[in-house]
């Protein structure tokens, strides 16, 4: 494990930290982060992963795929954190998110987690299931269709992120939507990349 950023206030005994560490180690995590995603964290993470893959002498093909998928996953966290989630029931910051990058048997696993509004949950689920039900060729035409017909949001997102992640990883998108309460749902996504 090279680096862990954990931005939590440590109110609990330090003994618990080893538990967190062990869990990350068991998952072969290279980097993990929990907090609010910023442009700087994004840049730094990409730099760390590039030099890490360089050191591991990964082949250019997997290196590029990991980099591409990572950019999309992290930028999703950067863009799709709702500023207007209305929930006062828990003290945590709703703009917080989590990501973990693990390397396991020559495969990279990128996992992300963030809060969404419960009403957005069915739309997301439908979109991901549609993507997961598509063949390689179908994904290619779907991408072209959204690219050509879609409009850009004010945040500069084009609705192509998940399609691109599925195309580049060549795997089904594993995801989970966990209802927290009437105002919050937690969305987790895990993408596997290997040659």
């Amino acid at each position, binding site marked *: 494990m090279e680096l862990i950023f954990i931005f939590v206030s440590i109110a609990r005994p330090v003994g618990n930290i080893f538990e967190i560490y062990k869990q990350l180690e068991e998952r072969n995590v290279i980097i993990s982060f929990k907090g609010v995603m910023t*442009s700087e964290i*994004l*840049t730094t993470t*990409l*730099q760390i992963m590039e030099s890490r893959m360089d050191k591991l002498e990964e082949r*250019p*093909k997997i290196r*590029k*795929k990991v*980099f*591409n998928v990572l*950019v*999309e996953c992290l*930028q999703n966290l*950067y*863009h799709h954190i709702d500023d207007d989630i209305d929930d006062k029931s828990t003290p945590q910051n709703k703009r917080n998110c989590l990501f973990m990058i693990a390397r396991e048997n020559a495969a990279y696993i990128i996992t992300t987690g963030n809060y969404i509004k419960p009403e957005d949950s069915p739309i997301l689920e439908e979109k991901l299931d549609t993507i997961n039900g598509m063949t390689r060729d179908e994904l*290619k035409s779907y*991408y*072209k269709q959204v*690219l*050509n017909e*879609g409009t*850009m949001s004010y*945040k*500069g*997102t*084009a609705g*192509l*992120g998940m*399609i*691109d992640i599925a*195309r*580049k990883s060549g795997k089904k998108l594993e995801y989970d939507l966990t209802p927290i309460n009437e105002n919050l749902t937690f969305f987790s996504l895990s993408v596997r990349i290997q040659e």
Partner: protein
Amino acid sequence: MENLNLEGSAKTPTVTFDGGNGTLELKGRSIPENSIEFYKPLNDWIDQYATTPQSKTTVDVKLEYFNTSSSKCILDLFKQLEKLNQQNTEVHVNWYYEEDDEDMAEAGEDYQAIIDLPFKMIEVEEI
């Protein structure tokens, strides 16, 4: 008209738009969080160039990485050039990709399928 030269960064490509010889080059990586902001000056430059273009315009895309936010902006740039092609300049696109980079080759094909401009796919060892 003035040339547009932008130095590349960790998230943005090197831009070399030369109105004098009609060559427009994008090189490096294009992964900014908000690409609209980055591409706006490029669109504006092409609008200007469209008023007095060279008889031949060559577009060299030498990208190592680009994100989906940029992909939309790159499409808009091609659409601008597509219009220009029907006026008084012949536009050619050279799409470079590194050998073994199927994803980048495929990305070029995607644009080729959408855009009505002659595309040349060029495989190189390193961009």
